[in-house]
Structures are given as structure tokens and as C-alpha cells.
């Protein structure tokens, strides 16, 4: 059945949407940054689900499975997501640094207050 076959992708999309909602709807800047982080982990889940193999094992060579590619999880999405995780925490750090500076400049991190202060 297609639900059993695709449920992992749909949960990943659900996580992405749960992360997208605070970016649009919530006025607090910290919540927006947290929403972006949730969105990113949803994308990672989607990507790794593509590379999983039924009955497979971790992509490290051992003699039982030999060089048979059907016995290992696909190593390529794993490699790409590994660096993406470290890059995502670095960009979250920069985003939080910008939020701290906004707080120092405007005195608040809620969007309506910042917009009012800008229009004065």
C-alpha cells in the first residue's frame, strides 16, 4: 500500500511544515530561528530516508556483507547530510548573534515593536 511505502517521507514533510509555521506566523525572532532549525532537520530526515536500504547495515566495511551494495545503507546521502548538520548549527549561531544585536539596538525581539521603532 502506498501509505506504508511512503510514510517516512510524509512525516518528514509534516516536520518541515511544523517548522515553517513559526517563521511566517509567530512574531518572536527566537521562535523564527527555532522554526528554521526544525525545517532543516525535516529536510535531513527526508534525505536520509531516500538512502535507507531494507535489511541493510551501517556503511562500514565488514567481511560478511563484502562489497555488496544491497547490504549497506547508501553512503552518499549520509555523507552530504553529515556536513550539512554542522553547517546548520553554524548558521543558527550566526542567526542568534544577529538576534542578540537586534535586541541591543531596538530593546525588543518582537516584530511589532521593531517595526514601530523603525517607523519613528
Amino acid at each position: 500500500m502506498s501509505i506504508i511505502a511512503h510514510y517516512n517521507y510524509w512525516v518528514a514533510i509534516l516536520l518541515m511544515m511544523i517548522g515553517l509555521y513559526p517563521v511566517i506566523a509567530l512574531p518572536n525572532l527566537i521562535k523564527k530561528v527555532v522554526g528554521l532549525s526544525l525545517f532543516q532537520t525535516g529536510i535531513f530526515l527526508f534525505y536520509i530516508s531516500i538512502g535507507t536500504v531494507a535489511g541493510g547495515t551501517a556503511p562500514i566495511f565488514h567481511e560478511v556483507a563484502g562489497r555488496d551494495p544491497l547490504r549497506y545503507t547508501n553512503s552518499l546521502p549520509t555523507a552530504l547530510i553529515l556536513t550539512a548538520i554542522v553547517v546548520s548549527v553554524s548558521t543558527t549561531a550566526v542567526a542568534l548573534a544577529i538576534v542578540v544585536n537586534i535586541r541591543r539596538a531596538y530593546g525588543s525581539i518582537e516584530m511589532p515593536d521593531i517595526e514601530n521603532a523603525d517607523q519613528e
Partner: protein
Amino acid sequence: MRDQSILRVAAKSMTPFILVFGLYVIFHGDISPGGGFQGGVIVASAFILYGLVYGGAEMRRVIPRWLSDTLLAFGVLLYAGTGTFTLLAGYRFLDYTALLPGNPGTGEVIGMTLVEYGVGFTVSMVMITIYNEISEGTVPDTGSQPPGEAGGNG
């Protein structure tokens, strides 16, 4: 944290083990799960634990600002330098067989090790820098110039 001697003793005795484990993860990245990224983060977490328990000034005494800034750039330089060296030796960029032209297999291993060290340096120093910069001036801000740390800037 001055009165919490359990925390101070535990942090000080755990730090060498965390460091050794982090270096093990970097060195054995070829054989077991791990590599430069994971090992770099673990090495940084040892220093961050020390900084959390003993204070920012004490952590700055152990890792001075000039050291973390220099090693930050040195990691990327090591990585790109390996690639430029292989380019200048006549091979393609980041073709590790240039490092030991007699046996290309060993050259690959040497190249991978050097590059992992570069990644480990950069990632660990970036995590330490992130923690230090975000935790300086820990008094809640009143919007204007925040009061400096009691020990001054490192």
C-alpha cells in the same frame, strides 16, 4: 560555581577523558564512525565544559583568543594547502596520489589524514569561538553598553 566543589572536581577529572575520546574519533575516522567533524565537536565540548564550570576568564587563560583565532584559520589553510600542493606537484587539485608518487595507496591515506586534521581544527575552534562570543557579558542587557566582565577581556 565557587561553592560547588562536586561540579568542579567532576569537570576537571572528566576533561582529559573527553579530550582523548575526541582525538580518538578524529584519528579513527577511517575505520569507525567518526571523522573530523564529530571529533572536532567532542574536543570543543571538553573545553566548553571547563569554561562552563570555571568561568570564561579561566577558559580564556587555557585557550587564549589569539590561539583559537589562529587555529581557526589554520584548519582551512591546511585543507586548501594540501590541494594546492598537489596542484603545484603537477597532479589534479586534491588528488592525494601526489603526496607519495611511489605508492598511490599510501598517498591517499596520508592525504585523507591531513585533511581530517584540518577539518578537526576548524570545527573545534569554531565551536569554542561560538560559545565564547555568545556567553560574554552575561549580565542581562539594558540596551546600552553592557558592563564588562569582572576579570576584563581575556
